């Protein structure tokens, strides 16, 4: 049986073609979970590139689905704010948004971002490469052979939380907490997981803050170090942050370094299984790993969208986005826009310009860790090719119930030499 056979896609493709556009709700978390989002977004790109939805749970919001429109909105920070004061970067409005630099406008955003930027400097990446490679080798060498296991748990989660622990200089034995906090920060309360309410989320994130406050206190009194906690504790723009702002920036860095890379690590295995010709191409020419990594990140688009809030009325596609309206820039859709990318629904590991994709965002909020993410994925695939002739997906992937995080909780695989 084909593990990627999707029993829902035919029905949703039909539905996406026929229902009135007013009935579209692009941010329905089920679409990503069931992997049926594409036909809806392809019709939106075609017929309603700026779409308005009155959603009962998250409130009314606009959707942008074309590559070019998203790019133009990204650089128009005067009109489109990221600030947590207006609701931040996700569609759901919280009673009290967490302040974090991705959810700040200029100039504060720039000042805080600059504090953590050195963690991914070219020199730092170079010095981390060896460590990342050793760990990756260890994780891969420990995998069982000819036995089914969950790739998400044994590889993707393990590798990403080790990386995060290093970046924060976080106690290694406790590193599973980082994954737990990351998942807690992003979980949809209706997803049936451990985060069943905002109150539960707050309680768990308070534990995260308490833990990290201990680390802060240790490091603020020590010489400035090269880990993220020390950088924040000593950085001119961050050393006087309120505890909530510290928590916000921690959540940003944890989620930013965790979910995204983890899900791309899993996505790559899926895409190569769905495209055996590309897998053969890769084995015949391992030098393609580098361009494949960018293609995996495009194809996965681990963060489906980012939200902005209009600071003034704005005309687009003959409609007016009103001051105060919220807007989702659907990266996942822009990355499948045929006007910007040739054969966008095809997974092609040797594209001419593979880095032209929206997954990292563009403009001043562009992902600060993009090169590190690429490095981790590149090393993973280089080491996989050294070891396994094949990673075979043997059961259907389970995807996350979320409109924001495009990810996996389970991917049953077998590896063979």
């Amino acid at each position, binding site marked *: 049986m084909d593990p990627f056979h999707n029993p829902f896609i035919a029905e949703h493709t039909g539905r996406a073609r026929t229902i009135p556009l007013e009935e579209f709700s692009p941010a329905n978390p089920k679409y990503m979970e069931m992997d049926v989002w594409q036909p809806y977004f392809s019709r939106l790109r075609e017929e309603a590139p700026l779409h308005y939805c009155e959603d009962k749970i998250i409130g009314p919001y606009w959707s942008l689905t074309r590559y070019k429109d998203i*790019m133009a909105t990204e650089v128009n920070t005067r009109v489109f704010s990221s600030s947590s004061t207006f609701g931040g970067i996700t569609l759901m409005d919280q009673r009290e948004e967490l302040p974090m630099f991705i959810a700040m406008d200029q100039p504060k955003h*720039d000042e805080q971002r600059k504090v953590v*930027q050195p963690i991914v400097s070219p020199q730092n990446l170079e010095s981390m490469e060896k460590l990342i490679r050793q760990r990756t080798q260890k994780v891969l060498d420990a995998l069982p052979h000819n036995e089914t296991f969950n790739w998400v748990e044994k590889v993707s989660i393990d590798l990403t939380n080790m990386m995060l622990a290093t970046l924060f200089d976080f106690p290694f034995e406790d590193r599973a907490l980082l994954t737990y906090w990351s998942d807690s920060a992003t979980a949809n309360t209706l997803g049936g997981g451990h985060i069943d309410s905002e109150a539960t989320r707050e309680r768990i994130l308070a534990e995260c803050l308490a833990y990290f406050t201990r680390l802060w206190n240790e490091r603020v009194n020590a010489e400035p170090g090269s880990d993220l906690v020390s950088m924040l504790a000593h950085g001119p723009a961050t050393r006087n942050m309120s505890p909530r702002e510290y928590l916000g920036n921690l959540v940003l860095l944890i989620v930013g370094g965790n979910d995204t890379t983890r899900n791309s690590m899993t996505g790559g295995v899926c895409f190569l299984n769905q495209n055996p010709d590309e897998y053969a191409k890769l084995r015949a020419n391992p030098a393609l790993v580098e361009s494949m990594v960018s293609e995996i990140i495009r194809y996965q688009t681990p963060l489906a969208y980012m939200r902005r809030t209009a600071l003034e009325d704005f005309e687009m596609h003959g409609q007016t986005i009103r001051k105060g309206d919220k807007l989702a820039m659907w990266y996942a859709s822009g990355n499948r826009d045929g006007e910007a990318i040739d054969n966008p629904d095809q997974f092609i590991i040797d594209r001419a310009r593979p880095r*032209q994709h929206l997954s990292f965002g*563009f*403009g*001043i909020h*562009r992902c*600060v860790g993009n090169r590190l993410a690429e490095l981790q994925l590149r090393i993973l695939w280089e080491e996989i090719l050294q070891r396994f002739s094949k990673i075979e997906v043997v059961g259907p992937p389970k995807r996350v119930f979320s409109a924001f995080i495009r990810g996996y909780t389970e991917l049953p695989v077998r590896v063979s030499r």
Partner: protein
Amino acid sequence: MPSATFIDHAGQSRTVEGPEGENLMRVAVLNDVPGIDADCGGECACATCHVFVDEAWLDKCGEPSELETSMLSFAATAQPNSRLACQIILTSALDGIVVETPAAQH
């Protein structure tokens, strides 16, 4: 057509020509000059077309916009003569401009 010289990190220099009005990033990419990534395609939104402009030419390039200044402040290895190549428009006044590309675009 005005010409532009790109010197890579290893010191190798390449002189290419481009039509007036074209930006320096595109002139490089269209002529297969290595060392310029241009992930955003010239929207001043990625800072992966970062170059160091030869001091003799810096003033002639005009002032960077606010957005360019912000983007540059996030580029690794930014220096006072850093610019984004996609924001420099080739004109006859810039005929012969010399820029250096960094070790890596980041």
